[in-house]
């Protein structure tokens, strides 16, 4: 029955797409939410069912029909359920459901209401295909499908240039990764002869793949992941993606889609482990991204952009996890991140809603008292992400950093730690600027200032709840061998990796360091933005170049533009003008003209004079006879 999980939202999307025009809003919201709810229900049922399945008969596979079959290229339309995908389905349907509900309130007055829910359902469908596809090709289908939905939803308000632009950018940047992904799939097909995950596992275990080949494939696949999961160097689309409706940012660009890369890497963990080098690359890219994105988040004034950079940074953490071989930890962070990051986004959406769409933090402040529900939930999210103990973010981040340290990846660990300071800092900068301090709200916004309706706040509360408790399924090993339920659950799918034993004291020490770092970040934020709000200005004045660099996001967009887009477009123009029009067409037209000219020249003999005609005839005779003579 689990194969219904993706199909229900899919069917709903289809109905909405075809008939949405004629359906009332109320019906649309019910159908959309219920379909996801049903999926969520089935996911839960299947999850518990899965607990009873002996590890040997995993994964459970349901083949719907043969999809593509040609020569040695085979791809069935088959869905699988194993712990990894089960967790993902739960996250996707669960968070998705809440966001569907939230959207009912958030989008209530939008004229594209039906369209919005069509896209949202379609996204859920595609994401579920991604996580449940039993082979790489089907995974790629979902992979592209979520990309499409992301494109559609980012550009949802396509009348705005920026939105349309951002959507397009997201799609194209993703496609760059996808191209590499496709090549990776091809290599696997070439070696394994199939794209089935089981077959791939079998091939790796059977030693069919050499280490070098594994590296190549893994890197290609990871290149795909950098696109989808917004890692260096392909992260540039994600900040712009904030042009979409906020629930979309929450669902797609925080909780689910962008983490698909992490899921994929975890799914292919055997390959990465086999390669070794590839894992190293993943870890380093993840770490660099984590800190790089965090620095950019420092100076942003747009509340959603801060969150976007934070997402990039957090996904970096997940990749650190994968890179150091702690796939379970990476997945765990994915799991917790889904809650608190969507919470943060939804809360931010609630703030926006309250301020009639205002996103600039400089025009907020002191909102605490106006938004009695949004404020605490947002705060919970911020604490969770900052890595304060006893909230979910703490456990997952700590697991990653511990593993990094344990693997001897001190450099990565250090970067991660630095990122953690920054994370705590910019999150609380956000909190303080938004909810504390003097009010800087513009007057017209203030008139409408109100807390969001129930339908929006309830999901906030639920998410806040999970942001707190979700961490407890994966307690650190320090608390007991069996404390990490999450990791144990994933064991059948995830290669356990090299056994690492840190001393208990070391582990506690690491935890303490993490905590200290988080608190430190919060404190600095407190000093900068509440205690002495002038400090930031002073620092800016001291390091104007640095500030400008950060504020402009290291000019990466500009560099990409100048290095790739412009040369490509301008170069093409030059080639078109000069080669296509002048050389090729010139040759063709020139041939025609030359032929015509030859005709004209030959026509000159046709002077109308009898003697000239005779002369030609005589010439012919003379040549003919002369030829015969010699």
């Amino acid at each position: 029955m689990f194969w219904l999980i993706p199909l229900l939202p899919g069917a709903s999307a289809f109905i909405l797409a075809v008939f949405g025009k004629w359906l009332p809003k109320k019906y649309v919201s019910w159908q959309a939410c219920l379909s996801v709810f049903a999926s969520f229900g089935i996911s839960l049922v299947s999850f518990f069912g899965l607990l009873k399945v002996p590890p040997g008969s995993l994964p459970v596979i349901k083949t719907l029909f043969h999809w593509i079959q040609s020569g040695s290229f085979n791809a069935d339309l088959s869905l699988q359920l194993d712990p990894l995908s089960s967790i993902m389905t739960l996250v996707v349907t669960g968070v998705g459901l809440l966001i569907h509900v939230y959207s009912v309130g958030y989008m209530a007055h939008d004229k594209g209401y039906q369209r919005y829910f069509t896209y949202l359902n379609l996204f859920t469908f595609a994401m579920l295909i991604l996580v449940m596809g039993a082979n790489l090709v089907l995974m790629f289908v979902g992979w592209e499908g979520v990309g499409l939905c992301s494109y559609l939803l980012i550009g949802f308000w396509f009348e705005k240039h920026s939105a349309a632009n951002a959507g397009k950018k997201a799609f194209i940047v993703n496609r760059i990764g996808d191209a590499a992904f496709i090549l990776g799939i091809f290599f696997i097909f070439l070696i394994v002869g199939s794209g089935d995950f089981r077959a791939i596992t079998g091939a790796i275990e059977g030693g069919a793949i050499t280490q070098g080949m594994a590296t190549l494939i893994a890197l290609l696949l990871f290149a795909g992941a950098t696109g989808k999961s917004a890692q260096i160097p392909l992260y540039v689309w994600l900040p712009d993606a904030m042009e979409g409706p906020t629930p979309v940012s929450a669902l797609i660009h925080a909780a689910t889609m962008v983490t698909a890369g992490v899921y994929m890497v975890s799914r292919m963990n055997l390959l990465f482990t086999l390669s070794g080098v590839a894992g190293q690359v993943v870890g380093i890219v993840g770490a660099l991204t984590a800190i790089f994105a965090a620095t950019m988040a420092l100076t942003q004034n747009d509340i959603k952009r801060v969150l976007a950079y934070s997402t990039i940074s957090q996904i970096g953490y997940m990749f650190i996890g994968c890179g150091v071989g702690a796939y379970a930890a990476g997945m765990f962070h994915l799991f917790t991140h889904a809650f608190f990051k969507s919470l943060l986004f939804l809360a931010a959406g609630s703030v926006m809603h309250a301020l009639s769409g205002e996103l600039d933090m400089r025009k907020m402040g002191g909102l605490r008292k106006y938004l009695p529900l949004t404020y605490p939930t947002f705060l919970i999210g911020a604490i969770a992400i900052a890595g304060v103990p006893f909230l979910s973010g703490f456990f997952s981040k700590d697991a990653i950093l511990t593993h990094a340290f344990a693997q001897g990846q001190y450099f990565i660990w250090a970067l991660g730690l630095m990122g953690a300071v920054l994370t705590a800092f910019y999150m609380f900068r956000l909190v303080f600027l938004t909810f504390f301090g003097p009010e800087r709200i513009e007057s017209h916004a203030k008139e409408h200032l109100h807390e969001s309706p129930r339908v929006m706040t309830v999901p906030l509360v639920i998410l806040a709840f999970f942001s707190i408790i979700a961490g407890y399924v994966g307690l650190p090993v320090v608390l007991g061998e069996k404390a990490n339920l999450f990791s144990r659950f994933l064991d059948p799918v995830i290669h356990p990796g090299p056994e690492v034993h840190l001393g208990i004291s070391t582990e506690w020490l690491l935890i303490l360091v993490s905590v200290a770092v988080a608190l430190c970040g919060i404190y600095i934020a407190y000093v900068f933005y509440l205690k002495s709000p002038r400090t930031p200005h002073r620092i800016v004045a001291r390091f104007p170049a640095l500030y400008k660099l950060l504020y402009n996001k290291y000019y990466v967009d500009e560099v990409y533009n100048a290095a790739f887009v412009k040369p490509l477009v301008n170069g093409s123009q030059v080639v078109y003008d000069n080669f296509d029009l002048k050389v090729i067409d010139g040759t063709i037209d020139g041939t025609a003209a030359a032929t015509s000219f030859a005709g004209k020249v030959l026509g000159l003999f046709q002077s109308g004079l009898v003697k000239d005609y005779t002369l030609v005839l005589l010439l012919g005779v003379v040549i003919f006879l002369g030829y015969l003579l010699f």
Partner: protein
Amino acid sequence: MGIFLFFLLAILCVGGVLGMILSKNQAHNALFLVFAFACLGGLFGLLDAPFIAAVQIIIYAGAIMVLFIFVIMMVNLEQGISPEKKKWTLGLSAVLAVFLLVELGLAVRGMLGSLGRTGGPSIGSPTELGRLLFTDYLYPFEITSVLIIAALVGAIVLVKKKEKE
């Protein structure tokens, strides 16, 4: 004697043609040509073709050239027409003509000797020709009738006045 006659006639004939070429006046041209054709008739005679010689003189020198002269009189130009003015056409044609002469000369050079000499058994007696015309060459002979009709109709249709005129 024969040789002398040949050269005399040949020179006269060529002279006649040259005269035609060099003279401006059409009437003179025609007369030069009549002269040349008459000489040619003589040459035919030398070649044991008395009948053709007669025909040549009667038809060519007589009929055809008279026709020319008629036309020349009908056209009645006051002054003659000088030779070609387009120098390069003339030059090129002269060059080509010389080439042609050389080519033809080279071609026949080897066989000239094998052609034999005049004299010997007579072949061109009118009786013989007449017999041939109405036996072996009856068909061509009949065709000439069609030819002459065609020429007749053609000439008439081209020069006759329109009915209304």
